[in-house]
């Protein structure tokens, strides 16, 4: 199977899966779930093959020292809308490959975790698969127009998924989430169109645009527009408020996918479109964004301390951790950017597992209020231990993925000698203490202490539930213990972006 075909297949397969669900009888839930599972399993295999192929190819063709253009592999280009010279233009570098791997793992686990969705299951899985197709599409696109198109495909089904299958104030939450994200999209679209017309190259090709030097005044105006537009999805302060409400209302698989992968699209876009195409704009605006994301990191962590709902705690911790992604980027150093990318992967795995476990626990206790729980270790040791481990990953324990990412972010931001950078680094490092506080509070209230009477008869995870948890745990440990190959891949991809930034 050649590379470009593989790339196309990866985003087409979820669409086919969605289509394949359509003719199934509405009440035949089992078949719909099996189709989704098989489709995503195939995709997981395809992405794994892609990763392996990519490793061999990138080993054979290393990025040249001092290269300023990202090296995409498996590229393929064919004209689409000739009028504006929009192309179907695909290719991947290491960042997108790793993000696709993350997506494949998270969605596979997500499908397993939503095995108990029986309310309009057909629509649910169709929408879920469409969403996933959009996510893959973003990662394979080099053409900014298709990039944006896929981006919208990924964002919009969220409205229905939360609004229909959510819990609590779901209509309000889904409306808020969608409106804020779409407002962000408007910024992005404006930015992309501005790039297209300003360059005068009549091209949406990322590589072509990156060769063009945009004037400083243009970059000064449009860099923050693009960065904030994507930043909304990356939960940048003060546009993060869709995240707690949205995540709290969303069904398990949607939370997993949304926090695990979709929020990463924000960081991915900031890096790929914002910083890569407008390096001077990035230089000009970095101090401003550095302050914003430092607020993110601390504010999210402090915000999580006083929350009582498990999902709100996790959502605020996501705000803090996604802040670290952008914090790494705004450090403007090689290690920092790399740390940001690693944090995207690490946070994706971690938060997916968080929401997966919360869904399973909620399914048993029917409450997410921490103070009402307690002593779950006694009745559900597997879920409890998994929760403790993912909590520890969240607070950056070495041996789990969080540490690898955070260490890179901190080393990277410290190696920028600016005074502001130093101060922000100190503040961000101190946030790990706050993280420890809220993680341990949640863990202690949830799994430790004497067991409440009404929970004494609950059961531990079934075999089907253990599978996604185990997969995600293995990934967390794998990245934490043997970070070598991931770091190596990311190194290759970050070098050109960083060189371009420092040009």
């Amino acid at each position, binding site marked *: 199977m050649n590379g470009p075909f593989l790339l196309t297949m990866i985003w087409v397969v979820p669409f086919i899966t969605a289509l394949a669900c359509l003719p199934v009888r509405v009440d035949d839930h089992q078949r719909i779930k099996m189709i989704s599972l098989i489709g995503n399993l195939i995709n997981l295999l395809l992405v794994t093959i892609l990763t392996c192929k990519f490793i061999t190819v990138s080993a054979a063709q290393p990025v040249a020292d001092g290269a300023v253009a990202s090296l995409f592999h498996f590229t393929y280009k064919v004209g689409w809308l000739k009028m504006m010279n929009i192309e179907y233009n695909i290719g991947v570098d290491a960042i997108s490959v790793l993000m696709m791997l993350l997506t494949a793992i998270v969605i596979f686990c997500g499908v397993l975790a939503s095995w108990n969705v029986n309310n309009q299951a057909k629509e649910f899985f169709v929408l879920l698969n469409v969403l996933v197709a959009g996510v893959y599409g973003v990662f394979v696109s080099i053409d900014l127009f298709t990039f944006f198109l896929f981006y919208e495909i990924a964002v919009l089904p969220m409205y229905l998924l939360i609004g229909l299958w959510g819990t609590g104030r779901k209509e309000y939450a889904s409306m808020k989430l969608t409106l804020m994200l779409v407002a962000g999209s408007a910024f992005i679209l404006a930015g992309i169109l501005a790039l297209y017309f300003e360059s005068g190259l009549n091209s949406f090709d990322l590589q072509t645009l990156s060769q063009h030097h945009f004037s400083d005044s243009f970059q000064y105006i449009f860099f923050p527009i693009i960065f904030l537009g994507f930043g909304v999805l990356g939960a940048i302060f003060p546009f993060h408020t869709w995240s707690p409400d949205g995540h709290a209302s969303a069904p398990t698989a949607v939370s997993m996918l949304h926090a695990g992968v979709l929020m990463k699209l924000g960081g991915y876009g900031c890096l790929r479109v914002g910083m890569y195409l407008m390096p001077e704009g990035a230089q000009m605006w970095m101090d401003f964004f550095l302050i914003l994301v430092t607020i993110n990191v601390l*504010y999210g962590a402090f915000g999580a301390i006083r929350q009582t709902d498990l999902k709100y705690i996790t959502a605020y911790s996501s705000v803090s951790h996604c802040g670290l992604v952008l914090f790494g980027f705004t450090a403007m150093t090689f290690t920092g950017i790399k740390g940001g990318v690693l944090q995207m992967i690490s946070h994706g795995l971690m938060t997916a597992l968080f929401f997966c476990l919360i869904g399973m626990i909620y399914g048993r206790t029917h409450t997410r209020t921490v103070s009402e729980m307690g002593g779950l270790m006694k009745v559900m040791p597997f879920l409890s231990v998994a929760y403790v481990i993912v909590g520890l990953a969240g607070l950056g*324990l070495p041996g789990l993925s969080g540490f690898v990412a955070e260490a890179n972010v901190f080393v990277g931001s410290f190696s920028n000698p600016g005074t502001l950078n130093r101060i922000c680094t100190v503040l961000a490092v101190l946030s*790990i203490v706050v993280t420890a506080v809220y993680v341990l509070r949640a863990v202690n209230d949830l799994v430790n202490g004497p067991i409440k009477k009404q929970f004494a008869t609950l059961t531990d995870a079934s075999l089907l539930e253990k599978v996604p948890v185990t997969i995600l745990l293995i990934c967390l440990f794998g990245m934490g213990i043997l970070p070598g190959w991931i770091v190596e891949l990311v190194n290759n991809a970050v070098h050109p972006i960083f060189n371009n930034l420092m040009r």
Partner: protein
Amino acid sequence: MADFIFFNSYLILFCPLLSFVVIGLGHLRSDNTFVGKFAITLSALSCGYALITALTYFIAVMGHGQGDVYPAKMALDSAWLNFSPTLTANMGIYLDPISVMMLIVVSVISLLVNIYSVGYMKGDPSFNRFFSLLALFSFSMLGLVVSSNILQMFVFWELVGVSSYALIGFWYEKPSAVAASKKAFIMTRFADAFFLLGILLVSFQSGSFSFQILNSPETAALLNKNFLFAGMSINMLTLGTLLIFCGGWGKSAMFPLHVWLPDAMEGPTPVSSIIHSATMVVAGVYLTARMFPLFAASESTLFVIQCIGAFTALFAAVIAITQMDIKRILAFSTLSQLGYMIFSLGAAKVCAEGGHHESSINILGYSAAMYHVFTHAFFKCMLFLGAGAIIHAVHSNDILKMGGLKSLMPKTYWSLLAACLAIAGVFPLSGFWSKDAILLASLQSGHYITFLVGLMTGALTAFYMFRFFFLIFHGEARSELHDVHEDPWMTWPIIILTIPTLFAGLLEHFFIIHVVPPQLDEAAHFVHPSWLPWIATLAAVLGIGSAWLLYGKGKTETAARLKDMFGSVYTLVYNKFYVDEVWLFITHKILFNCIAAPIKWFDRKVVDGSMDLTGWLLQVGGKGIRFSQNGQLQFYLGVTLVGVFMFFFLG
């Protein structure tokens, strides 16, 4: 041959790791002794290999260095995490006198505690979890001591922290244990954040994590520059070393971060014994020793270290006098002894007022600290194991409820007598030699106040240890005891530990000659005042004597009278000077109520509110526009007419 042994030294770490994974993941049910024996076997293998490695190190490396100094040996070092093209963190095994010494201490104590725990934890439903976590701790601690670079040390530093967390909260249904585990983790984590900052600063300046590079004079010179911050001139070397020391500050529970250690006694006693007295809590001392050449380059850092160590030594000893809980007494005693080790390292800096020794280093301070780490590990571990055996037999932690256990637990009695004599510093037991070396070091370096504090603490130590001892073993039983017996699984490790307690004094010469910091010039020769051992012994005898007067034969009446005499002072000391309450105030009142709660409010009301407001405004605007487009012709006509009139009048 030697290289082969060194190359395979990863086995020391691998065995406990295997034990952790197999016991943790494997469903080894019901047959408890099998799990225990499995853990013991792997622990024994690890310990055996550690001893072989140590022996090989002393034989093979001896004579290859200059003079008496053993050169360091990098047994393994491979890249782990690549930060940038110039900065990579390795994972390695670094052998030098202190790491080899710690390897022996950790692996031997780990083996003995494993054996002991089979008896102690017998019948506990979470027997397997206990052994797997204990193995995780052994792995992490061994990894910590052999670290070849500071990032690796941080990695294992956090791992020992988390195994300590999991083991303190081992009985997770007990709220006090859970609270204690959380407190311990967060306090040490707080210190570790500064440690991490220190690592960032030092490694950024020197461009490396490796201890060999960090400890080189070049790094010290590179760091030794001032920068201005908020109008203050700050020395980067002092700042960096102090930040790194912060890690040790928390882990070794120096004042005012000490509050987690007494609470940590909520964990099972074997855990207190290995983690919270013998090995993990000395990690701070070990870190300071590991980075000693760099620390020694900054006078202020060593001064801070010395002050904080001396203060904690005295402070904790005073508190220990008033405590009633058998394990808490030992915990405060641990704090006090850690203070000794820390101030000994700080006292290595020779006081400048001597004139000709200006800013030189008295390496005895370093050797003595390491020597005390070694001797203390054994006798304190034994004290805890003994205390565990007593708790196991009596089912109480309160020493006032004990008494008269001498005849019931003779083996424990005689072993603990040795340990108490050792910690009190009575000739010729191990504690005497190491304390003597510490006092000598501070005297030689001209730190007379520290010396006096050390001497005074010595007397207090002797007093509270024998108060503990007499109240437990002598006199009549003060409560009803049923079925008091000694379990051989538990008694034998205690008896074995008496060997180093009694005879570690023989190693004094070895430590002082060979366990010396690398890359430091030998300082001038100091005199050894012959009166010092007599004074130290006098202090110990004084302490034991007054303990005998007050509590000998298990009496408590005189002590109770004294307690009433000093009522308010006693309450202050008994409540540990209310340091816990201060921390509680900081975390609950300030952190939770003054920062986190307003942020929560701000987020919901202001940030989110403004988003809702935007939505509301849009809706209102939409309604307004809808009103103007309502499709009624009369309305349109009316508006048009109004417009026409307005034009008319305005025109």
